[in-house]
């Protein structure tokens, strides 16, 4: 029996042959078959793509909007009361793990207040309302750390830009603080902020895995974890690339 | 021992700009181009020039802090530019360096005593007592009190720090000290003290100096001979008095004329030199100085002038001045003569 399976999977061939076959299949669009589910990996992933893409893009949107505003606000009145509150929030947001935030949210907003469903996922095809309803808590949970991170980066790069000579020039020629902050500073700090956000995407994905577990969302994160636990290598390989 | 203490032959350093795996020719910075000179025991040779002319690179090449692109550096006839690591290690003892910035050239975590005895400890093990005796001795040599050995650099003044730098260079009893702008970071009054210290040390211990500076006032005070560099090349090398009394190369002339002179009776030449120093990435053809030279002729645009020995023992690289005042230029223009000491 084992011999038969080995033969079927081509595991008896030398390593280079196996590798070349794998690359060749990939180029043809055949990403392999899940050993565990017995179905093509690509099909498995396609099924799971929507929840993950929904969750991560919504989180990205919320975090960038809130994070950049918080960071700008903190930089605007550096070491003032607003800055202190926001810095404290950012330190806290960094320190609370996403799944702990998740359970707190579930307990208070879903179990006690019954405002939103406890867990699960509804595809966007079944109505925007249900989709949003199921995604609110996961998005908030996942956003906390990310908002803290983006706020920190924004504040740092804004302060750096604000101390440049051309900012003093802008102030000297009488630019309003609104124009200073948004027209001159944020535009220049923006590139740096975007770069860091791009690099930290990996950081977000790590959180997605945990969030999907807490809220029982059938996404790619769960798929990867299950694949690893089942040693389902074809699935894991494609997911991580 | 016969021959000069230090002999530099056709020393060249090009810095490639970027890595050129795919391009056939990458642009290079020609920092030092075909530089030759020698230094006798107990002598002071000054190298002068504007910033960016390659004089600091020459110092770093002599110490082999950077690898030369071409040429040889001979100490007592041994080429240190080709030495392997271990042999080089031994030769470090003959030649030491004093750095420009007395702040960043001292490790701020170590005490004065640790700093100045470190070179010796690289070669031999010292007991605590020996180390203290050595530190006290070195500090006394540079005019500091031995109690200073426990201080950190941050507790010392700029002049005291530079004395430490000199003490560190003296630790190995070198025959040659290279001083790269050793006083230019100091106040004028402290500059004089340090220069006098160097002169005293030279008289007592017979140390030779290669002194790199942009300050002609300082150079005139201490130099036996002066080499003038422009865009990586030596354009004139002459005994100090001769150079200051009668500069030959038009660039030297301009430099000497531009330097403030404390003697009002001395006649001052007015030599206008216009424009900026050209880039060493893309130096002008022929004589690098020709775009700014008031005397430039057709030939200066085409041929690099060789260093031509003149009657009073100097060498000059100028198509206009050198053939007219000395011997005629040799037929092959691109070979440079080793200047006579």
């Amino acid at each position, binding site marked *: 029996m084992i011999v038969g399976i080995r033969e079927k999977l081509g595991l008896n061939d030398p390593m280079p042959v196996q590798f070349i076959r794998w690359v060749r299949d990939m180029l043809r669009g055949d990403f392999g078959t899940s050993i565990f589910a017995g179905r093509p990996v690509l099909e498995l992933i396609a099924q799971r793509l929507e929840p993950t893409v929904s969750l991560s893009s919504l989180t990205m949107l919320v975090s960038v909007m809130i994070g950049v505003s918080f960071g700008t606000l903190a930089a605007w009145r550096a*070491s003032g009361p607003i800055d202190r509150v926001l810095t404290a929030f950012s*330190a*806290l947001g*960094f*320190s*609370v*793990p*996403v*799944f*702990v935030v998740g*359970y*707190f949210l*579930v*307990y208070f907003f879903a*179990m006690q207040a019954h405002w939103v469903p406890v867990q699960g996922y509804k595809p966007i095809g079944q109505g925007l309302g249900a989709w949003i309803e199921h995604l609110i808590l996961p998005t908030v949970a996942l956003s906390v750390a990310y908002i803290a991170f983006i706020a*920190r980066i924004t*504040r*740092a790069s804004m*302060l*750096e830009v604000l101390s440049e000579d051309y900012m003093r020039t802008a102030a000297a020629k009488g630019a309003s603080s609104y124009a200073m902050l948004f027209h001159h500073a944020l535009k220049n700090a923006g590139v740096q902020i975007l770069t860091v956000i791009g690099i930290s995407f*990996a*950081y977000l*994905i*790590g959180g997605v*895995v*945990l969030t999907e*577990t*807490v809220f029982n969302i059938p996404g790619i994160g769960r798929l*990867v*974890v299950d694949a*690893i*636990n089942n*040693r389902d290598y074809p699935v*894991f390989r494609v997911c*991580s690339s | 021992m016969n021959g000069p203490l230090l002999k530099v032959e056709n020393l060249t350093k090009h810095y490639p700009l970027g890595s050129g795996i795919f391009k056939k020719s990458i642009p290079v910075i020609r920092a030092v181009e075909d530089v030759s000179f020698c230094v006798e025991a107990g002598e002071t040779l000054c190298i002068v020039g504007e910033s960016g002319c390659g004089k600091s690179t020459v110092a*770093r090449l002599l*110490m082999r*802090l950077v690898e030369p692109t071409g040429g040889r550096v001979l100490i007592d006839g041994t080429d240190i530019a080709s030495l392997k690591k271990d042999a080089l*290690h031994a030769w*470090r*003892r003959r030649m*030491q*360096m004093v*750095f*420009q*910035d007395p702040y*960043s*050239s*001292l*490790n701020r*975590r*170590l005490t004065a005593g640790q700093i100045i005895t*470190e*070179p010796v400890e*690289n*070669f031999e093990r010292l007991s605590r007592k020996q180390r203290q005796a050595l530190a006290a001795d070195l500090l006394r040599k540079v005019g500091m009190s031995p109690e200073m050995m426990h201080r950190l650099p941050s507790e010392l003044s700029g002049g005291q720090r530079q004395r430490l*730098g000199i003490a*560190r260079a003296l*630790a*190995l009893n070198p025959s040659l000290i290279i001083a790269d702008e050793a006083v230019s970071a100091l106040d004028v009054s402290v500059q004089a003290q340090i220069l006098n210290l160097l002169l005293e040390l030279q008289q007592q211990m017979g140390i030779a100096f290669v002194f790199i500076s942009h300050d002609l006032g300082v150079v005139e005070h201490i130099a036996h001979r002066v080499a003038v560099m422009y865009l990586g090349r030596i354009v004139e090398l002459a005994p100090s008095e001769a150079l200051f009394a009668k500069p030959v190369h038009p660039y030297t002339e301009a430099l000497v004329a531009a330097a403030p002179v404390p003697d009002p009776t001395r006649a001052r030449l007015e030599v206008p030199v216009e424009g900026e120093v050209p880039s060493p990435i893309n130096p002008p053809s022929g004589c690098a100085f020709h775009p700014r030279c008031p005397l430039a002729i057709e030939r200066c645009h085409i041929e690099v002038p060789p260093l031509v020995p003149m009657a009073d023992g100097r060498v000059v690289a100028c198509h206009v001045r050198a053939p007219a005042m000395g011997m005629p230029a040799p037929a092959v223009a691109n070979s440079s003569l080793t200047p006579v000491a």
Partner: protein
Amino acid sequence: MIGGGLLMLLIVLALAAPIYAGDPVNMDPFKRLQPPSAEMWFGSDNLGRDVFARTIFGARISLMVGLLSAACAALVGLLIGVVAGYSRSFDNVVMRIMDGLMSIPTILLAIALISLTGPGIGILIVAIAIPETPAVARLVRSVVLGVRERPYVEAALCGGARLPKVLWRHILPSTVPALMVQGATVCASAILTEAGLSFLGVGVPPEIPSWGNMIASSRLYLAIAPMTIFAPGICLAVTVLAVNLLGDGLRDLFDPRAKRRR
């Protein structure tokens, strides 16, 4: 320095756990999912185990794994960073690998590493340390690249110092402040990763009480006994916060100018 004090307190509490905390593994089928009481301060879990005792004992695992992973990452990162800062060819190869490692999410990389061998505390520490190493290596490398051009390093070379001595005496000390600050960040991140892995069921083996394990095994009972999840969750957050605050404090200490920024 609130962070440092808080962390010391946590370490003492964790070390002293056997003296006062009670038994973390004893099961009592008659006292399942009890609310907090005088006997069991945080109540009991689904197997009737004392949540307070388990939380306190969980601190030991979290702190141990966090500190050891951070130490491993710092040490290996330091080594790689110093060599990369000094050797061009090593730099080109190894830093590309480091960049590659950095682009993989920490948790996934750790899971993949653990899946190669199976669970265990030792492999857990290694699996957490490996994804954290590149950040340390990068930081150390940048410090070394900055310091190696400094005149006092050149002066040491001129004085005949050999490379190992230059590295040890003149370059390594300059990396210490940055290394300590980064070490705190890595430690916080490592504690979070450990909890996340245990929560996913691939971290600390389930028979050992750890905060991630406790939350994972109690997730179905959130509505009935919220303390089973909140107690370890809050402890986890406070611990990570303490380490993060310590890191911030260290940075302000070593680089007062950076205080205004970040």
